[in-house]
């Protein structure tokens, strides 16, 4: 079985007892989404006492877990914007990190399709923008080439843009890999620790207080995603307000995968990149997202209207897709603000960096943002003492293009649990479930198990294995199944 290192020393969660953390951390990162995790990882390169403070029960359970999982090159970002710059830098960093950390990805390329004359007229402008952003391989394609590349596309495309760098990757493994590497390199991860109040103590240290306990620190990074405006306000700053923008998505059965070869992008508008159709790294096809501004930061439900709109869009782009079974529907909230660009600001006198308003390109921009934020912290006087070693991270592979444990004679020979399939739809083995329950950042909930292994993510949505997984996790995590079932919403179905 894969390495199951001791962990509770560095990962902890609220287990019903208030703990006062005595030591003062050099720096606290609030929010263990993909951005916060990337920042904590970047900080863990240095000899610092760093803590990653997360309100939720797991890493990456806010915006990071429910998005389109597209690794954007930033070809259509506003030239000269911080977003454009950081996306570009992030792309280079991710290209090194993603394969090395075992994060599933596929460089499929994006095909932006114009269906109306107006959209076709917008193409040269988009091409110009892409070239300004340094994406020189972006080129115009003819209607013929589009239909040749995508034989199942509905007839009538007028022309388009080919963006070779657009890729898909695993939105679950990425934040987990980043946070795991941070933990392996000495950062502490505190789950179930919402920050409700921030006080300043006599010695100048901050105390981040909430129902999970208090955390004392010298520097603060705010990567609280949907709640980044609220944390910002706790520190007396008011530059932006987050308005959750809901995106609903439909995931289709794996049998649809052969219908799509690229990420099919629409011509973007000012508000949204629009509804796209894209393969996923698990071999499904995804349709979405919608874009709807909501007042409620917890409203991750799908709607009749949203699903119907997506269905119509799907019929208009790839009719054959709509004949396949739906595997899942879900909705995510992007932290949009009144500004179009990222809200990354240094308040040096407060020893505080705000990394908020990462409205829709968080997974693509995370590593660029992390590097930039650490630079700002250094500007603010945070010493970054060098460390001799930066331990690498290698995650269990859950993509469709590489070798999975059930396909590996070597892994099964070494441990027969890798040949014992528990989740039949996604072919997840008992060995992988056990590994996930004992990982550096272990799965504590069934949904955590799903994100780490793909179990329950398939076409039957738990008809066969849901109960078995609950029983297994309860056994492995030594938890009462009642409690396990109450820990987290948004699991399956």
């Amino acid at each position, binding site marked *: 079985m894969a390495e199951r290192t001791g962990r509770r020393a560095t990962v902890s969660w609220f287990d019903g007892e208030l703990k006062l953390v005595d030591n003062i951390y050099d720096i606290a990162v609030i929010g263990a989404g993909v951005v916060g995790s990337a920042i904590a990882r970047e900080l863990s390169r240095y000899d610092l006492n760093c803590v990653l403070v997360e309100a939720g029960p797991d890493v990456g359970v806010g915006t990071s877990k429910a998005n389109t999982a597209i690794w954007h090159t930033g070809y259509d970002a506003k030239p000269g914007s911080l977003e454009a710059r950081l996306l570009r830098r992030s792309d280079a960093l991710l290209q090194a990190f993603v394969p090395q950390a075992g994060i599933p990805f596929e460089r499929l390329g994006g095909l932006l399709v114009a269906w109306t004359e107006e959209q076709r007229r917008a193409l040269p402008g988009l091409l110009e923008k892409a070239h300004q952003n340094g994406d020189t391989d972006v080129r115009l394609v003819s209607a013929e080439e589009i239909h040749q590349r995508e034989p199942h596309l509905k007839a009538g495309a007028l022309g388009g843009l080919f963006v070779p760098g657009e890729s898909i990757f695993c939105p679950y493994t990425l934040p987990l890999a980043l946070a795991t590497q941070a933990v392996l390199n000495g950062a502490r991860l505190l789950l179930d620790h919402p920050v409700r109040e921030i006080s300043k103590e006599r010695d100048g240290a901050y105390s981040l207080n909430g129902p999970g306990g208090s955390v004392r620190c010298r520097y603060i990074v705010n990567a609280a995603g949907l709640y980044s405006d609220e944390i910002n306000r706790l520190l007396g700053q008011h530059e932006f307000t987050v308005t959750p923008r809901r995106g609903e998505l439909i995931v289709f059965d794996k049998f649809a995968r052969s219908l799509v070869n690229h990420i099919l992008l629409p011509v973007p508008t000012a508000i949204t990149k629009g509804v796209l159709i894209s393969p996923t790294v698990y071999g499904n096809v995804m349709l979405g997202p919608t874009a709807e501004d909501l007042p409620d930061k917890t409203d991750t439900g799908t709607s009749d209207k949203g699903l119907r709109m997506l269905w119509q869009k799907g019929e208009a782009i790839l009719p054959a897709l709509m004949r396949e079974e739906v595997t899942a529907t879900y909705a995510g909230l992007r932290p949009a603000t009144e500004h179009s660009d990222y809200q990354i600001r240094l308040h040096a006198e407060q020893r505080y960096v705000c990394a908020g308003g990462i409205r829709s390109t968080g997974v693509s921009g995370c590593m660029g943002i992390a590097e930039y934020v650490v630079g700002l912290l250094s500007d603010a006087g945070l010493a970054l003492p060098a460390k001799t070693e930066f331990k690498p991270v290698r995650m269990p592979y859950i993509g469709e293009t590489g070798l999975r444990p059930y*396909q590996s004679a070597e892994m099964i020979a070494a441990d027969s*649990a890798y040949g014992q399939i528990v989740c039949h739809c996604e*072919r997840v083995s008992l060995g992988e479930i056990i590994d996930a329950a004992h990982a550096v950042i272990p799965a504590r909930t069934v949904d955590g198990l799903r994100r780490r292994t793909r179990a329950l993510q398939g076409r*039957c949505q*738990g008809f066969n294995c849901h109960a078995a997984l609950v*029983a297994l996790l309860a056994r492995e995590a030594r938890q009462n199944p009642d409690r396990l*079932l109450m820990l987290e*919403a948004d699991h399956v179905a």
Partner: protein
Amino acid sequence: MSPDKTDVLIVGAGPAGLAAGIELKRLGVTNVLVVEREDEPGGIPRLCHHAGFGLRDLRWIYSGPGYARHYVREAEAAGVEIRTSTTMTGWQSSATVTFTSPRGLGQIEAGAILLATGCRERPRSARLVPGRRPQGVFTTGSLQCFVYQHRLPVGKRAVIVGAELVSLSALMTLAHARVSAAAMVTELPRHQIYFPYLPAKWYFADLAARTPVVTGARVSNIVGGTRVEGVEITHLASEQREMLACDTVVFTGDWIPEHELARLGGLTLDPGTRGPQVDAGFRTSARGVFAAGNLLRGAETADTCALEGARVARHIHDYLNTGQWPAASLPVQVKPPITWMFPNVVRVSGERPVAGGFTFRVREFCQDARVTVWQGEKSLYAQSFRQLSPNDSARLGSDWLAAVNPAGEALRVGVRHS
């Protein structure tokens, strides 16, 4: 790696697969191997810890697990080899399949292959029911695994989506777990629990009486945070919405054949059943590959599947002896309100389906319906039905087969109200 060899490979150790194995051994086939991906043979009846199994095939009323045990014991006694925890992963050829198991990877080469992979219920997501994704959303299958297999907590008060036979199974499972049922909700104007299972409804009359059946309504939203707090139902006629408070929702029925292996093997699927296309001899579009049981069309009861298993065994036995595989065939296409018909291809040799003709289902209640078979513009056959009911199979006679023009167009079946 040299493949394991067997005369007949059966994929799926449910009622159809086991019954086929038993019959093949009885007919004198030497090596019959049944593979099952679960760690225990028996199929879905294993999960249904209530009475109502075996009426048609065993002429006795068994509980689900009792029924499954009966077939497993019979198969073992007959000399059928059963391999559990073995997942078929793909095809090397139409005679060789690959598998994964705790013992490693491997291949099995067989003289004939029977797919009996069963079916599953359509989950909430595939029904596009909007709303949040709280804990407490089940299918009958997952509910039964929670309650009977793993004895996990379920909830206190449930809404059952559907009012057919399997919904009754969900109701009994909930009762076992001491979960009260707030309602059964069906889009159709009446429940669909029929003879011979209606007595079960009477038997559970007390239970049923406490469970109102809301007809002509669909579940239009699921409300809740961590746990389900209720479902919104929309009455189809009035568009009026209503909230039903509950902490558990069970989506029942709406079956989808588990056709993954069939599709991976490139078998032609029937658009109506979504299972592999088969003729009256349960032969698929690939030579030497047969299909039976609920893979063919979503759920019939276990006894019907077992009877099919025994029937397909005879056709497999014939094929092993003669090597004959009829060539040309005509597909049978259905028009709404008929949802599917099976067999769904007709061999031009005019082979008749045994045991009562063609099986079909409708999606709505039809009174005084005249089911007609056409080839091109020519009407070949018509049969009157006083009542056709959804979620209940009807049989169409096969006297028209002799009239089929082997060189003609596809056959079409539709309903005319007389």
